[in-house]
């Protein structure tokens, strides 16, 4: 893999940022340039796995572009200092030449590919570099094997899933045999399955190439970074705010939160326990956490027989309670609700096929009432978005019917239904087209016939709720991705819908913006509006939703409280999903009497209670007494 001709000394770092500053060209003529990176000094050794994280707009992507030389060569803008990659100054080395040392993969699967068949896509880079065809053939074999795409060799890339496309993008740059692989949030737009596949490919790469490949991975999913990285750097406002080994960086949970970074749940748990117990716990992986906490529980728990029965009871009681609750949920839907005049949304045995051919919904029934916080989860292609689009009439059922506040969607216009149901799409760029944030927010209410003080009040309310007041006159399309997302959601919120649907709203958001959004949604539900959240982020679901609907292959697989659905490993597995980290940890410690838990707070409290009440450890099932 390694190219011995690399023009550098063996000890020299492979990537070196020397007080590197970059400012984007001003978005509109006459405005000030936008600072992306400020005085970055950073060295990456050959073979290192460097993780980068930070809030949106902190400069993570700019750092990637700078390593590949795309900054400044393709972007323009003002630079100071320099970046040296494999001995080459990126200011003067053309990008195609740098491409022989640096491979880069972007977040959006669509923009990573030229659009050929899998094999030709991989061949494209080496062909441009003038590699002999026989050698290209050998490289294709290897990169397709390592990314798990060998059996897709002749398929058109357009027919691949998002996860496959990202693996193909990785394969395509690997075929150019770079020494450095730069991955800019490669899994941010993928469902859990696609994400796992990409992670598995990175793992295989690490196994097969070891230190011969240097990897720079940008991720907002810090859990992933804590698993892979040798070293982590946290960016903030274009500077490196924190840097060090993952264990050291992720233990500084308060600083991370202040920097707008989502703290990995296990690190958050460790910090919580350390505060409460004065301990010095630190764990990055599930195995580590399980081992450490098991030791703690075994040490602390002096065993007495008197605590035994309540524990059993609580475990069994939980199980019994769950079945009865599930039962209630399905039976109660008819008895209790049918007395009420109208459900907010009433979906009755809906079937739908795209183009009349491809089945998407296969007999789905669902009622949404006022003041619900409902999360819709499931793998890509399970029918989540299709179902959501039935709630506001964008799609109309082939059979069955959908009533929105009693109105049949088949005979009501989308514009009319928009009074009741608001729908914020996944990509904010699909919604924003007006020259200021305030005008963007006024668009929807104005379409509903509002004007004058009433309209202004709506706009002000939305600006405040989402913390956008200071951005009122800014041009939405020139804001960062996270803020564009908030504007798009606020624009739908301003219409004051009784049900607000959000399709994957947190994909491009950092910890702080996600927190702000979720807090706003929680408030809405308290005020009596309903929220339907489509997401892959089970941690968010665990912390905020009150009801979870799990979809798989166009059907509803489960419908219940977050506790019922998210701790049901077998149920989730049917949909190719796993319980959230904390739920898995709680389960693995169940033999110590830890009850099922979903959130860090819940788990920590249960664990602390366990440690202080000094309860006994019941024998493990199937274990000889």
């Amino acid at each position, binding site marked *: 893999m390694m190219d011995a001709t690399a023009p550098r000394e063996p000890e020299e770092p492979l990537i070196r940022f020397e007080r590197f500053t970059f400012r984007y060209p001003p978005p509109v003529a006459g405005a000030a340039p936008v600072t992306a990176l400020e005085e970055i000094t950073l060295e990456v050794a050959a073979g290192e796995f460097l993780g980068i994280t930070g809030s949106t707009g902190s400069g993570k992507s700019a750092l990637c572009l700078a390593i590949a030389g795309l900054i400044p060569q393709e972007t323009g803008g003002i630079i100071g200092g320099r970046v040296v990659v494999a001995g080459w100054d990126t200011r003067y080395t*053309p990008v195609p030449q740098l*491409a022989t040392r640096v491979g880069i993969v972007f977040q959006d699967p669509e*923009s990573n590919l030229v*659009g050929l068949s899998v094999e030709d896509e991989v061949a494209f880079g080496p062909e441009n570099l003038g590699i002999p065809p026989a050698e290209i053939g050998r490289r*294709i074999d290897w990169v397709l094997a390592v990314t798990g795409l060998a059996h897709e060799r002749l398929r058109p890339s*357009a027919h691949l899933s998002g996860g496959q496309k990202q693996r193909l993008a990785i394969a395509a740059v690997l075929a150019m045999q770079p020494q450095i692989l730069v991955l800019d949030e490669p899994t941010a737009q993928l469902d859990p399955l696609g994400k796992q596949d990409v992670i598995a490919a990175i793992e295989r790469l690490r196994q097969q190439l070891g230190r011969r490949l240097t990897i720079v991975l940008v991720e907002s999913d810090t859990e992933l970074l804590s698993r892979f990285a040798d070293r982590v750097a946290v960016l903030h406002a274009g500077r490196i705010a924190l840097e060090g080994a993952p264990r050291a960086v992720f233990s500084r949970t308060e600083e991370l939160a202040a920097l707008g970074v989502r703290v990995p749940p296990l690190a958050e748990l460790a910090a919580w326990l350390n505060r409460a117990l004065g301990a010095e716990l630190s764990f990055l992986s599930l195995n580590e956490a399980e081992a450490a906490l098991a030791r703690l529980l075994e040490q602390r728990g002096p065993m007495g027989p008197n605590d035994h029965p309540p524990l059993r009871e609580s475990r069994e009681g939980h199980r019994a309670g769950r079945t009865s609750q599930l039962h209630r949920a399905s039976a109660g839907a008819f008895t209790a609700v049918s007395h009420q005049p109208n459900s907010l949304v009433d979906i009755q045995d809906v079937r739908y096929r795209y183009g009349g051919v491809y089945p998407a919904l296969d007999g789905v029934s669902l009622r949404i009432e006022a003041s619900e916080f409902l999360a819709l989860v499931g793998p890509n292609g399970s029918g989540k978005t299709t179902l959501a689009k039935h709630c506001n009439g964008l799609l109309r059922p082939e059979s069955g019917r959908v009533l929105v506040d009693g109105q049949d969607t088949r005979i009501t216009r989308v514009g009319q239904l928009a009074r009741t*149901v608001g729908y914020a*799409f996944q990509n904010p760029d*699909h919604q924003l087209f007006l020259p200021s944030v305030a005008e963007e927010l006024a668009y929807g209410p104005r379409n509903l016939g509002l004007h004058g003080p009433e309209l202004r009040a709506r706009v002000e309310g939305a600006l405040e709720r989402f913390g956008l007041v200071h951005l009122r006159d800014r041009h939405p399309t020139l804001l960062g991705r996270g803020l564009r997302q908030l504007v798009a959601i606020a624009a739908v919120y301003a219409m004051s819908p009784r049900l607000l649907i959000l399709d994957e709203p947190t994909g491009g958001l950092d910890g702080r913006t996600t927190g702000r959004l979720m807090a706003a949604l929680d408030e809405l539900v308290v005020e009596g509006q309903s929220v339907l959240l489509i997401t892959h982020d089970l941690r968010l679901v665990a912390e905020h939703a009150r009801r979870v609907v799990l979809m798989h292959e166009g059907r509803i697989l489960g419908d219940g409280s977050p506790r019922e659905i998210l701790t049901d490993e077998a149920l989730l597995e049917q949909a190719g999903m796993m319980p959230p980290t904390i739920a898995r940890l709680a389960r693995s410690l169940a033999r110590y009497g830890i009850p099922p838990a979903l959130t860090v707070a819940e788990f920590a409290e249960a664990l602390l209670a366990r440690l202080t009440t000094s309860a006994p450890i019941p024998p493990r099932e199937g274990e000889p007494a």
Partner: protein
Amino acid sequence: MSARYDLYAPGNSWLHRLDPRVKLILATLAALLVLLWSSLPLLLAALALAHLLLMLARYPRGLVAGVWRALAPLLILIVVLWPIFDRRGELIVLALGPLIVTGEALLRGLATALRIAALSFTLLLWLGTTDQRSLVRSLVRLGLPFSLGMAMTIGLRFIPTFANVFQTVSEALQARGLDLPPRGLRRLRAMLPILVAALVTALRMSEQLGWTLAARGVGAPVRRTTLRDLAMRPVDWLALAAGLAAGFALLWLTLVEGLGRALR
């Protein structure tokens, strides 16, 4: 879920394997003949032959039906409107005030519709069995600059993507109360915001794509290689020779002897 915009059906039939340059040359010749002919029986024969070849190449029937569905409105329009504007011919089939329909005009309309259908399916023989890479490669080998060929590839690939973007943007704005009138100038005006948002998205995507191309070595100062270049096999030469012989014979008969120039 995106609709299909490409006509190519992957396969490994003799027609798929035939060198794309041969396919391009023979399809062009066939298209020329079809354009010259007015004879209903000949056009019908050409159409039937095209379908027979597609069948032999195991081209999916669903896609053939799709092409017919797409062509149907145009073909029907031609058959209906042609006789209204064409007053040639003696035999009057219908006379309703100023509206006179002659038998010959009816047949001419039919022939024009058939010509368009035959032309479409002749081209389908080429486009339906040639993947994008071979298509571009054949054009490059026939003299098109590589950069133009690549631009074509990318252009083709982004048609469905942009169609999807447009669709999504339109849905997103309808969900915000945008009322799209069913037709007419008012609909076009109402679609303006959709165009703006779709354009912004398209620009963002194309910027990223530019980066991807540079990072994949496009523009490297070396001679580009090709994983699998086109190579004429003996059977390709044979097909070319036979096709050209038949094609030119028909062309000679058409131009000199007047084959197929009359309606019947």
